[in-house]
């Protein structure tokens, strides 16, 4: 009378626990190699872009390319693309909070170090 009813209760109709028996998704080797090649390309692009004089835009370009690379690593190597929506939501929330912190402080810094 101890475990079995628990099984009946806990696993039958269990939409809220998100599926305790989820199988990990399989990603083929080929996808990873392709992503890696793309990462190498973007690295080459960002190194050469650094040699071009774009003034203020150099930083923007460098960060943009870095963000693309980060996006590739997150989505494929770290499987975010294949995980349930919950993971992407949590990630988005964390990035949003970081952006608020960075943004608000930066704006204030610009204002006060300029006078």
């Amino acid at each position, binding site marked *: 009378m101890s475990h079995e009813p*628990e099984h009946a*209760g806990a696993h039958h109709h269990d939409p809220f*626990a*998100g599926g305790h028996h989820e199988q990990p998704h399989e990603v083929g080797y080929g996808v990873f190699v392709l992503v890696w090649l793309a990462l190498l390309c973007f690295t080459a692009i960002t190194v050469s872009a650094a040699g071009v004089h774009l003034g203020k835009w150099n930083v923007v370009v460098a960060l943009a390319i870095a963000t693309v690379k980060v996006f590739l690593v997150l989505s494929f190597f770290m499987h975010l693309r294949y995980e349930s929506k919950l993971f992407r939501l949590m990630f988005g929330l964390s990035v949003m*909070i970081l952006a608020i912190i960075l943004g608000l402080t930066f704006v*204030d810094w610009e204002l006060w170090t300029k006078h």
Partner: protein
Amino acid sequence: MSNGAATAVLPEHTFLNFEEEEKSWFKRWIFSVDHKKIGILYGTSMMLFFLMGMTLGFLIRLEMLGPGSTIMGGRTYNTVFTLHGITMIFLFVIPGLMASFGNFFLPLQIGARDVAFPRLNLFSWWLFISGGALIYGSLFVGGTPIDTGWTFYAPYSVKTSASVSLAGLGVFFVGFSSILTGLNFVTTVHRMRCPGMTWTRMPLFVWTLYTTGWLQILATPVIGITLVMLLLERLLGVGFFDASKGGDPVLFQHLFWIYSHPAVYIMILPAMGAVSEIIPVFTRRNIYGYKYIAFSSVGIAIIAYIVWGHHMFTSGMADSSRIAFSLLTFFVAIPTAIKIFNWIATMYKGSITLEAPFLYALAFIFLFSIGGFSGLVQGALAADIHLHDTTYIVAHFHYVMFGGTGFAFFGALHHWWPKIFARMYNRKIAKGAAVGLFVGFNILYIPLFVMGFLGMPRRYFDYLPEYTFGHQVSTVGSWILIGSFLLMLWNLLRSFRSQPMTDPNPWNGTTLEWKVASPPPVENFAIVPTVHRGPYEHEPEAVRK
């Protein structure tokens, strides 16, 4: 309450005597991964730290009985209020109801057998204790005892030879402990709710534990990196906060408050959650506006991240930034007010039983409201220029942290004591102590509001003679407060002498923790329950009584 009848049949196996035969008490407690034991470990160590902090507070008020040096010199006074702040904030209020009652009751309230990562949970407590040991150890090792104030502001914290590094490392450990607890609880709520427990059937206490967990995860690392930079600054001279090296001390303030403002919501949310648990029980009513209260916790957690500048209005920030932070600060009153209105609406036409837990909940609403209103006063930029660094601020944060979280902690203690220990304290003495605490608290802190408004600075051991009367009244208030607290504590501890209770649900609570025996068995539930109704809805049988 419940029917009385003949024989008392306690469950043979509770979490307290599990594995009693095989292991020493040391192994059963210090190495236990049972969330209930960890909750008690946290609660006990936090109470010890609270007593230390309270003693330091007692000494502060003794010193302030007269102008000039009364029982200690200026340097000692600085150390005393620094330790008082660090102890109370990092070692009592921040872990707060989350680490103690949250650990004990989160799994029970969601129908789980433990948290998601029990060993990580134990590790969290070890980190907590180690951090506390480092903080107090720093008094005896290295330079003079730390005297920077709990806020560690640069440049003094960087330049002083006082033992800041060790204390800072201790705070780092405590912060890491906090992060791991938050991570554990968020995962637990996502993954371990029992069948039928949808998000909107969770107790409101669980909602606050969840949102507080996110605050811990996303805010605490910032103080972590700030402390790392502070340590590197002291040890290697990196110069991020040193104006002579191109750095900026105000940057330290930004980084510090980017964490420490969300930290105050880490402190208050679980306390509000406990109040949300107590009120339905003692008014015998379903909570009014469940979804509003639940989502207001989320609202508070989000707004928490965008108001930190209001701690820095006099630091030299640009006008437009200060105006922006001031405006944003007012927004936090909205979700807070939603909670307060809903609690009061719950009480309306309720069948009220004035027991100690409910008295503490009422005190919470009153005291926290005063704290909150004074917070709005401070949020008004022009007012804060005058009030910043006065005892007005001291009164404000004691009303919210002590009158708020502190009183909620005492209320939770009285509410859940019979569940954790199967003992009932003397209810009359408990109520008397609660009243004494309330009276002493107000006598202690109202003068600080008045004096601060009139210009009395904080963190000063000396003052102009015109403030003497106010300080003396305040100190007498502290004696009433401390006396009542000791009475409350003695009353609770004395309950261990009385017979164990047989009634697992003396207050007729409706949430799942009241459905298990007292003390709960180690496995929490013989069979994992399936839930079909909201957390505060009464059973049909109970209503029929």
